[in-house]
């Protein structure tokens, strides 16, 4: 641990990594909460995997992979919202199709780009130690957009995720807010891909908010708690991975998974203790 801290003081790549943890935790806590309460983890997974298509095409065309990821994620978000709102019956099949076809397109483009193999791994599993200054600036912008939109439309999002029918009767344009929410899920997925890669991103999006849901019964408190838990999971994962030179993304996910297991177990225990104290 001391070794990690002294390295943190000396190396900018570690400082960048730590900043990336902080920036991604904000989006993760806010949007992860919506994903958990609305139970759209599967749809978020579809978006995450479609991102590879955008990254692959951008890489092939020598553009910025991150920009390609943003475009592909937004495209997938709009399309998947459309599926959810209009073709509800085939939702699972269509999302699964997006999931795998998006990935396949990405792999095809990457395979036709010289020197692909190393980069494919970092797309899939992330590489937090390679986060650049421009990545950090983009991450900060994505955070500002997310926080701003959620602040402006907090009531509308609440109505849309809680009770669609009632929201519609109160004049809320569900289609618009649902699509907007999915677009923010998409941007958050891109944020988190920097940290853990697109295969593991769903776990990082869901675990912190699912932990928070065990203890908090309000969306706002869940958002704050999930942000804190995500920050703790990413930073401690990074610290644990440093000395034995483990892959940071995978270590972070395992850490978040352990947090979730502990959260479930302790909330169960707490409930049983409460029951006992009531019985006595």
């Amino acid at each position, binding site marked *: 641990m001391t070794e990690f801290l002294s390295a943190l003081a000396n190396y900018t790549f570690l400082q960048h990594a730590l900043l990336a943890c902080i920036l991604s935790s904000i989006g993760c806590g806010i949007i992860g909460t919506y994903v958990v309460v609305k139970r759209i983890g599967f749809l978020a997974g579809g978006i995450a995997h479609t991102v590879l298509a955008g990254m692959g095409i951008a890489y092939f065309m020598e553009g910025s992979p991150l920009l390609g990821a943003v475009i592909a994620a937004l495209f997938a978000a709009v399309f998947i919202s459309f599926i959810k709102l209009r073709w509800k019956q085939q939702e699972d099949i269509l999302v699964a199709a997006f999931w795998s076809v998006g990935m396949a397109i990405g792999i095809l483009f990457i395979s036709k780009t010289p020197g692909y193999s190393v980069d494919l791994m970092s797309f899939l599993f992330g590489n937090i130690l390679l986060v650049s200054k421009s990545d950090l600036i983009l991450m900060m912008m994505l955070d500002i957009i997310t926080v701003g939109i959620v602040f402006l439309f907090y009531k509308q999002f609440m109505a849309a995720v809680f009770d669609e029918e009632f929201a519609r009767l109160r004049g809320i344009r569900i289609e618009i807010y649902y699509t907007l929410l999915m677009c923010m899920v998409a941007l958050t997925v891109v944020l988190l891909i920097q940290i853990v890669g697109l295969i593991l991103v769903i776990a990082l999006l869901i675990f912190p908010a699912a932990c928070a849901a065990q203890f908090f019964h*309000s969306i706002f408190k869940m958002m704050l708690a999930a942000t804190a838990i995500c920050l703790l999971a990413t930073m401690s994962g990074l610290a644990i991975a440093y000395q034995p030179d483990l892959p940071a993304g995978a270590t972070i996910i395992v850490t978040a998974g352990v947090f979730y297991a502990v959260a479930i177990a302790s909330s169960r225990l707490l409930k049983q203790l409460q029951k006992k104290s009531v019985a006595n």
Partner: protein
Amino acid sequence: MNPIIEIDNVSFSYSHIPVVRDINLVIHEGEFLGVIGPNAGGKSTLLKLILGLLRPDAGKITVLGKSPDKGRSRIGYVPQYPAFSRDFPINVRDVVLLGRLGETRWYGGYTQEDRDIAMNALKAVEIDSIWNQSIDSLSGGQLQRMLIARALASKPDILILDEPTANIDVRAEEDIFALLKQYNDHMTIIVVSHDIGFISGYVNRVACLNQTLLCHTTSEISGKTIEELYGAPVRMIQHIH
């Protein structure tokens, strides 16, 4: 009395199976209308048509002289089954505050005025003491009162309730109807029920719906109409008030 909802020759079917046919009904301002009829008789469908959640295949509906899409902001709706899941992390007051949508500012959080209105709505249905409880801890009666408070929070001109007392005990049922009777002073109320004997003591007009509108009488419903409606004699339950 001014007409507040006009239903003109309305028919609707779910994929070719007719649910309601040739409905003509004018509801006037200040009425307390009971809609009764057997299961699958089209009661909830009629409400959804009035609310603009479904569009009629034929005929026309106006709410306050406008199309249902536009007029429904003046309607407070209490659904038969809540469309949300009970384990959603939200407390009672925050659910009621959702009734302020469309009435309050479009951005940011709620105003102090919204919170006052929500608390007053909770007082009216006598559950203001549990305003900060999360909804998974509510009893059936408390949940129903919360849904009524949410509808009241938008300060509607019309209150529409779909089987408001289906999941609660008789005493709570009487409380809720007494409360509605009170609100009827300044609100038009439409209530769907299958409990004919019970609502006839509160409403001032009854519409009997079994695909078509069989009758709407101002007086008490006779055994004959009930037989016509349900196709069999139904035992009327005597409620003592």
